[in-house]
């Protein structure tokens, strides 16, 4: 019985890791089409990637979008997390529900509703629209991780600040913030990664000439075949995420991120 379970565990890991490994390996392929085993290593597809204007633009736009939307999501989400962390009762539960809903809400419906909303307002520049959508989608990650960090802080410390007549801002800056910043950072980085790979809302909000990297990859896969430049684009996606995660590990430690 136990052998069967271990075999299934091995399959679980294969199912989850194999598609990503195959993409990374094929990105370094020297041949026109992916053959296994690869006859050598080359960076030609990365050169093709940066030589293709639409790809390069999509890559830059995705990074800009991820930076702007995650900073906004971090600012607003930190406020939300601080507000709901220590409050109990019906109003607080409702607020928590509203703040966290986008975590599980079908993003395709959010994308469509925002598109119609922007159309009714008389149009919205594509980049602003994407920033708004990704801010809404990224905010819950920050709210959740900030609220969890606040709950881990001993309330006595904040009360001590209050009893010393520190105002709310001073109390926050001198006591709470130094204790919860890993939570803020972890939430913000999640919002960044989410924005960098997000597809379903972006499908509705990208326009001609304004495309994110995942959407560009998707378009390419739909309309042209066998191009390993997509593998290079995907490998860049994975590479950037690894860099960000590694940075997070150095700054905060990943153990707390998995637990949250």
């Amino acid at each position, binding site marked *: *019985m136990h052998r*069967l*379970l*271990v075999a*299934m*565990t091995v399959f*679980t890991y294969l*199912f*989850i*890791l*194999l*598609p990503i490994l*195959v*993409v990374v390996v*094929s990105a370094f392929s020297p041949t026109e*089409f992916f053959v*296994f085993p690869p006859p050598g290593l080359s960076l030609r597809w990365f050169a093709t990637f940066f030589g293709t204007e639409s790809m390069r633009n999509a890559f830059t736009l995705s990074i800009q979008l991820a930076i702007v939307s995650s900073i906004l999501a971090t600012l*607003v989400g930190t*406020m*939300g997390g601080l*507000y709901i962390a220590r409050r109990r009762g019906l109003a607080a539960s409702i607020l928590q529900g509203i*703040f966290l*809903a986008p975590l*599980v*809400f*079908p993003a*395709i*419906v*959010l994308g*469509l*509703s*925002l598109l*119609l*909303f922007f*159309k*009714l307002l008389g149009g919205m520049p594509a980049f602003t629209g994407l920033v708004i*959508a990704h*801010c*809404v989608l990224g905010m819950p990650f920050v*709210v959740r991780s900030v609220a969890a960090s606040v709950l881990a802080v001993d309330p006595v410390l904040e009360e001590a600040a209050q009893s010393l007549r520190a105002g*709310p801002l001073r109390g926050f800056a001198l006591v709470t913030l130094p204790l919860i910043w890993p939570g803020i950072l972890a939430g913000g980085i999640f919002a960044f990664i989410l924005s*960098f*790979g*997000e*597809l*379903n809302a972006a*499908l509705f909000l990208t326009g001609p000439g304004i495309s994110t990297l*995942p959407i560009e*990859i*998707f378009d390419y*896969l*739909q309309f042209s075949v066998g191009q390993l430049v*997509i*593998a290079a684009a*995907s490998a860049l*996606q*994975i590479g950037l*995420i690894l860099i960000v995660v590694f940075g997070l590990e150095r700054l905060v430690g*990943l153990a707390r991120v*998995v637990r949250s």
Partner: protein
Amino acid sequence: MTKLVMTRRLASFALLAPPLFVSIIFFIVPLGLLFWVSIHGSSSSELYSDQITAENYIAIISDSFYLTIVQRTLGAGATILALCLVFGYATAYVLAPLSPRARLWLLLLLSLPLLVSNVVRAYGWLTLLGRQGLVNVVLQKAGAIDAPLVMLNTFQAVAFALMTIMLPYMVISICNALATIDSYYREAAQSLRANPFQTFVHVTWPLSSPGVASGMLLVFLMSLSAYVAIVLLGGPRMKLLVSLIFDSAATFRWPLAAAMSFVLLAIALVVCALILMVLRPQRVQGRG
């Protein structure tokens, strides 16, 4: 009221206002607007026509084409849930008794792919399952098959790929639930001469059901809106509900797309309620 209390009230209002503003203006209001559009007729010049009607919903319910797709969406969801439950539970069951450190690293290995865009993960399966993909090549070299298998553009490919994309959520939530079960409970069952099967059915499974429930909710909700994987692995003819929403929007039939979104949300609500009813996680927590 002292000045300090005033400042505190003001500060807590200032804290709440921005996130509440974002949630209301960019999440709740657009959703309300979407519903408003869904109960109007379509118009060639505007987003929707003036008269209020239920025709979009009636069209979805009465058209056998749409009904087939709703059925297929539910079928795909059920398949994904069943596969995720089997593989997710087995993996969590193997990982849970490991040392916290080993468990952490093994779970981390599973969670990293969640950070990679779904289009990349679907592309990986595209490369693996294609006519000249790795799976066909390996099977042919091993002599298991003569001609390459056709795996892409099938319901099975879509369900399987979506299952693997959602599987980490399932493993993580079940594993967290299993790891918190006190081993005394299992030992107590064994000392009462329960065999391993009885111990699992009466002790381990009920205690892990909150994790199973939250994993299933996540997996189902995520799989409902996985448009890109469905297009890439299912081809142009494998449509699920989410593809219809996108197709209707691409042809500017906004009211129909809006109505389909609410059918999707209704399905999400009903299935989530069913999962919670069957697994009843709160009952277990209540016993504490």
